[in-house]
């Protein structure tokens, strides 16, 4: 009890020293002089980020650990004798390259298709009035509320009738048809000023021109977000690829890694090496997409 009291006191002191203020949303010009508020903000952010980052860190160090040391307590937070042994075991899998390629094709294909279809449909919902708009929109949202565990069987039967079992189309089509992207793009695009569209029309743009030359460039931040979410979500998808594929060659990386877990239950080192390997492409995708978020400011500039 005593010790707990001490910790609370320390926290209180911390609070007194740095008055709690929620920073506003004005961008601070590129100076590096930090206010006490900023220091506090950074401290809070680092604390919260560490907390959610910890499992990921543990994943990586476990992958680099000697296998015998993986379940010990306290964990070795900084591996003294890191090893590539677990990765060697992972790369010894004959089909690892093929699975990775499949995942890239499937997740990449779905992402591109989603970006194409969702921006068009999202634009229609956000900026056009048409008969059946409300109904169709609720149809999109409503259909998301039925869990995948229920639609799995009908979807599989449909795919089987279309002879798409164990094909890339079978892997991709259900996700391409998913309504999430349309919903996201619609929500984003409706905050774009409609005056821009009117201005474009006055300038003699065609309907397609307005979409392609005015809306799409402005939608880049949202497209980046959608792109990342879709890619990461599909890359990690497990159940559908498992159910729809019938040969080792058509498996995706996640299904292949799950097999590894089944073969060696509790082989933390190898499993975490697999997870680390699977995470790398997504880190790359995230970092390369994310610079587009920051271009969002142009919207305000145009309007102002």
């Amino acid at each position, binding site marked *: 009890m005593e010790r707990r009291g001490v910790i609370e006191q320390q926290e209180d002191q911390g609070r007194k020293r740095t008055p709690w203020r929620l920073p506003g949303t004005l961008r601070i010009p590129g100076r590096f002089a930090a206010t006490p508020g900023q220091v506090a903000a950074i401290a809070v952010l680092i604390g919260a980020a560490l907390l959610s980052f910890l499992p990921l860190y543990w994943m990586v160090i476990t992958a680099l650990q000697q296998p015998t040391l993986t379940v010990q307590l306290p964990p070795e937070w900084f591996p003294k004798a890191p090893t590539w042994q677990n990765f060697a075991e992972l790369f010894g899998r004959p089909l690892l390259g093929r699975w990775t390629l499949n995942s890239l094709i499937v997740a990449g294909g779905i992402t591109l298709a989603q970006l194409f279809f969702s921006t068009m*449909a999202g634009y229609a919902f956000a900026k056009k009035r048409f008969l059946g708009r409300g109904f169709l929109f609720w149809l999109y949202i409503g*259909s998301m509320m039925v869990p995948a565990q229920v639609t799995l069987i009908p979807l599989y039967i449909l795919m089987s009738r279309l002879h798409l079992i164990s094909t890339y189309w079978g892997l991709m089509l259900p996700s391409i048809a998913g309504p999430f992207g349309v919903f996201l793009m*619609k929500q984003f695009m409706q905050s774009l000023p409609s005056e821009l569209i009117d201005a474009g029309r006055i300038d003699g743009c065609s309907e397609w021109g307005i979409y392609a030359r005015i809306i799409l460039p402005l939608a880049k931040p949202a497209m980046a977000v959608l792109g990342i979410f879709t890619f990461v979500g599909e890359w990690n998808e497990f159940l559908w690829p498992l159910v729809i594929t019938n040969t080792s060659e058509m498996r995706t990386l996640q299904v292949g890694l799950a097999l590894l877990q089944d073969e060696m239950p509790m082989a933390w080192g190898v499993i975490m090496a697999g997870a680390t390997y699977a995470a790398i492409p997504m880190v790359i995708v*995230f970092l390369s997409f994310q610079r587009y978020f920051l271009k969002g400011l142009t919207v305000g500039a145009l309007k102002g």
Partner: protein
Amino acid sequence: MAAFWQRLWKDRWAYFFLAPSLLLFLVFFLGPVLWSAYLSFLDYQVFSTRWVGLENYRRLAADPVFWLALRNTFLYTLGVVPLWLLKALIVAALIFPFARPIQTFFKSAFYLPHVTSAVIISLIWLWIFNPPFGLLNYLLSMVGLPKVAWLGDTRTALASLILMQVIMGGGSTIVMITAAMGSIPAHLFEAAYLDGATRVQAFLWVTVPLLRPTLLYLVVMGTISSFQVFTNIYLMTEGGPQFATMTIVYLIYDTAFKQFQFGPASALGVVLFLVIFAFALVQYRFLGSEVEY
């Protein structure tokens, strides 16, 4: 009739933009959804299918586990959605004023955990929560506190899952909110500050209202995905102990794939749909009132 066709013709560009997505959606998404709703009225066997009307629903209503699952699903959603959104909003607000490199750093730090699959996250947290070998109990024992069974105790199991979700979640939300914040015109803030608003006031009265479409999207999507929580349950608790973490979708999995009863499982899906739909309508009323859509 002529007016109807005229209207359609007038809207032709809207349909042009909508058509490709709509066509795919109808066939590969809505089709299976409607099919599963139809199944909920059937006694669906492999070689025989029989219309049983509301029988599957009646069976649900008589099953105490169903009511427990419904209650747990509500509790989980009510726990996760507000905490997760609040965390994301605060973090986004804290991040946003900083210069670009710092922003990028934090956004990545919060987002990166999302690159691991739910399976791996569950495995890691299983280890964290593990009573004899876990990190959490190890930390407790270091400060002299007794061990807790976490996922094994009816009192802490659901709360543990909520805690894990809130800690791990929010990364993508933060990315979305900061992206949306970037599109708020700066002159609105200048006006607010000229009127003597503090930063907190500016955040509450300028930022939050203008984020409304994004927040609405996040709340609706967060609700949908929380109501559909499955992977964590499947990998970590299997609905136990004593049904303390039994949720609707886990029950669907159990009914459909363990018991091979697709009619009742589909009925569960329909019930879940109705619950989420009601929630979404309320959320639209509440959050979407000033946003035209």
